[in-house]
């Protein structure tokens, strides 16, 4: 608003133009001394420390780290930068966004450079970055969904850590009766990562493919079971319903008004920034199960290091991606500084995993619990080629459902329809 009376057409096209002019990175031509400069987009806290190790050991291949955005926003930025032809060389991409970026030709096929590195991953992990036999990224971490809870709040109110969703509901009610100002957890409509993890645990398979035909089942009975369960908690008023990573949520987390966070194994490093006052007050437990004894969980995020189609130094960029995720020193530094649970098989037996994350000094067996959960984490058969549409649909439809107290099940129907319509429009075959 204000005094710039630019017209809307100029806005969109002008933004493209600006994106084209802006120096978003891109590869420099090799300098006369043969030195290669690579740019790396990543939003991990403390990644600079890991990149510094590489730069010290590789004077000929310099990696410049930049953090233009995180998660889904970075995906949008990558697509826009690709259109403008000035993307980075290397980028962190969450597994759920990778098929979409492959479909748009944003990330490069690096099969020829990753032959050795690929051997360090089991098939389940590699499945997330390998489509139709081609490798599009080196897996960085796996992030099984876990239950993070405040030990002090649980102790004060005499609560037991729930092991099933029924118990979770009862515990939420007990907490609500004893301390009405404390919510059991927060139902988040802003970040789709956690709900897809819960859907995976509940047996939903939002996307699957046979041959080149897609099947989309976002509003399946399994999805609606999970959605109805959470609607019950929201209606009972035992969970908060604010967007996560917002000032409101951060403050509630920091001041002990939220007792649990259903999150990925990377949570401890994030909690340091979200709720600095709560150091040592958190512990992790397996995600509650639908039937007692079932160990199935879902995933939230988990990422791969990808090389973009715009990179002029794909070989060196792939070399960095492989080093970052398979070299013992690099993986150790990542566990220590970013609290990832590594995707590489060799990384999972590193001695550093016997130490708890810095923010969880009270829980020595932190990585043991993650290690037990990891093999039981279930993902969708494949992530759709247009997840951004699905995810923005989730944010808007579930946000509106929370705002207006309308059924989550209807929101799922809307997301299903929007996703299928967009896939058909793009020319994908949908059964």
């Amino acid at each position, binding site marked *: 608003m204000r005094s710039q009376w630019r017209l809307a057409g100029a806005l969109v096209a002008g933004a493209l133009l600006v994106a084209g002019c802006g120096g978003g990175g891109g590869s420099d031509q090799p300098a006369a001394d043969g030195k290669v400069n690579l740019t790396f987009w990543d939003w991990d806290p403390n990644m600079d420390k890991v990149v510094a190790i590489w730069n010290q050991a590789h004077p000929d291949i310099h990696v410049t780290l930049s953090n233009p955005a995180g998660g889904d926003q970075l995906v949008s930025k990558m697509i826009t930068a690709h259109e403008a032809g000035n993307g980075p060389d290397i980028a962190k991409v969450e597994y759920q966004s990778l098929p979409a970026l492959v479909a748009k030709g944003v990330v490069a096929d690096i099969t020829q450079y990753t032959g050795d590195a690929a051997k360090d991953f089991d098939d389940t992990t590699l499945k997330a970055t390998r489509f139709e036999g081609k490798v599009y990224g080196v897996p960085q971490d796996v992030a099984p969904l876990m239950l993070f809870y405040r030990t002090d709040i649980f102790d004060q109110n005499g609560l037991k850590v729930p092991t099933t969703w029924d118990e979770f509901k009862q515990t939420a009610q007990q907490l609500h009766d004893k301390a009405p100002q404390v919510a059991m957890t927060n139902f988040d409509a802003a970040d789709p990562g956690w709900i897809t993890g819960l859907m995976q645990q509940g047996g939903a398979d939002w996307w699957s493919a046979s041959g080149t035909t897609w099947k989309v089942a976002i509003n399946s009975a399994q999805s609606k079971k999970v959605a109805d369960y959470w609607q019950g908690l929201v209606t009972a008023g035992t969970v908060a319903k604010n967007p996560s990573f917002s000032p409101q949520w951060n403050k509630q987390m920091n001041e002990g008004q939220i007792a649990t966070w259903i999150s990925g194994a990377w949570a401890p490093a994030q909690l340091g920034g979200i709720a600095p006052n709560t150091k040592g007050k958190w512990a992790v437990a397996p995600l509650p199960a639908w039937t007692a004894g079932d160990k199935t969980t879902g995933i939230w995020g988990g990422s791969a290091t990808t090389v973009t189609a715009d990179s002029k130094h794909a070989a060196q960029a792939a070399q960095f991606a492989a080093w970052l995720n398979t070299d013992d020193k690099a993986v150790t530094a990542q566990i220590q500084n970013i609290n990832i649970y590594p995707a590489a098989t060799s990384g999972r037996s590193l001695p550093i995993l016997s130490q708890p994350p810095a923010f969880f000094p009270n829980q020595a067996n932190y990585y043991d619990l993650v290690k037990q959960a990891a093999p039981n984490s279930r993902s969708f058969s494949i992530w759709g080629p247009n997840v951004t549409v699905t995810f923005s649909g989730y*944010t808007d439809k579930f946000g509106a459902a929370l705002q207006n107290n309308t059924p989550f099940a209807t929101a799922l129907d809307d997301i299903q329809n929007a996703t299928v319509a967009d896939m058909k429009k793009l*020319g994908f075959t949908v059964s």
Partner: protein
Amino acid sequence: MAARNRAKLPYLLVLPAVALLTLFVVAPGVYALVLSFQARKVTGGLLGGGSKLVFVGLDNYGLALADPELWSSIARMVLVALLFIPATVGFALLFALLLDVPRVKLARSSRLAIFLPYAVPGVIASLMWGFMYLPATSPIGGDHVDFFGATTVFFSVANVAVWGSVGFNMIVIFTALRALPSELYEAARIDGCSELRMALRIKVPLVLPAIAMCTLFTALASLQLFNEPNTLRPLSNAVSSTWVPLMKIYEDAFVNSDVNKAAATSVLFVIAALAVSFVASRTVSRVNR
């Protein structure tokens, strides 16, 4: 010789303006028009195996017009505008009239204080108001009043916009008031007219052209509503990613990466905006006459 140089001079003088207009308005506009007739289609294989742009005629326009979200976003924009335009022009006029009263105390510093919010960038202002609205951080009773309720959210968004625009419009009206000949006031005072009657019967009718211009500016500003709702969006479930038309266009272009549909919506929006401006400026010139 000298005469020929003089004939060239006007062209030289308008050249920078024409060049800038061509580069930053006309060229992107034409590009958007071209994009709006195209669509991206995948070329076989499970993940598409790359994609190509094809000519699709008016398909994007049909899709854009059939999208219920576009119409809801327009409805929300109109609701905000219905609050924003009268409040901005009303407060601007009120402040200008108050500052124009003779012997008013602290006129200069009050004028600066009212103008100051205009100097605060829209995104910063929205963030600041966002923190004032959120229950966890609100110093103005956000824990008692839900500033992001189904109805209150329209007032909350309009409030940020009003706060930012009153100052500018106040200056426009105030300047117009100052330009009025002082003999008018002297004559009115001799006739025993009170300050209030003078404001209503003399000042307001005489600055009507300035008020009309402010209304036009504010109406155009409502069409471009983007910063305020877009900045408030991550703070609350009340503001969706397609809350107003420009957010809808942004979402299509940069989140759902459908630049072509976004371009078609933009073209439609430009036509609508031009129509509104045309009607509004006709009204203004009639008032001025």
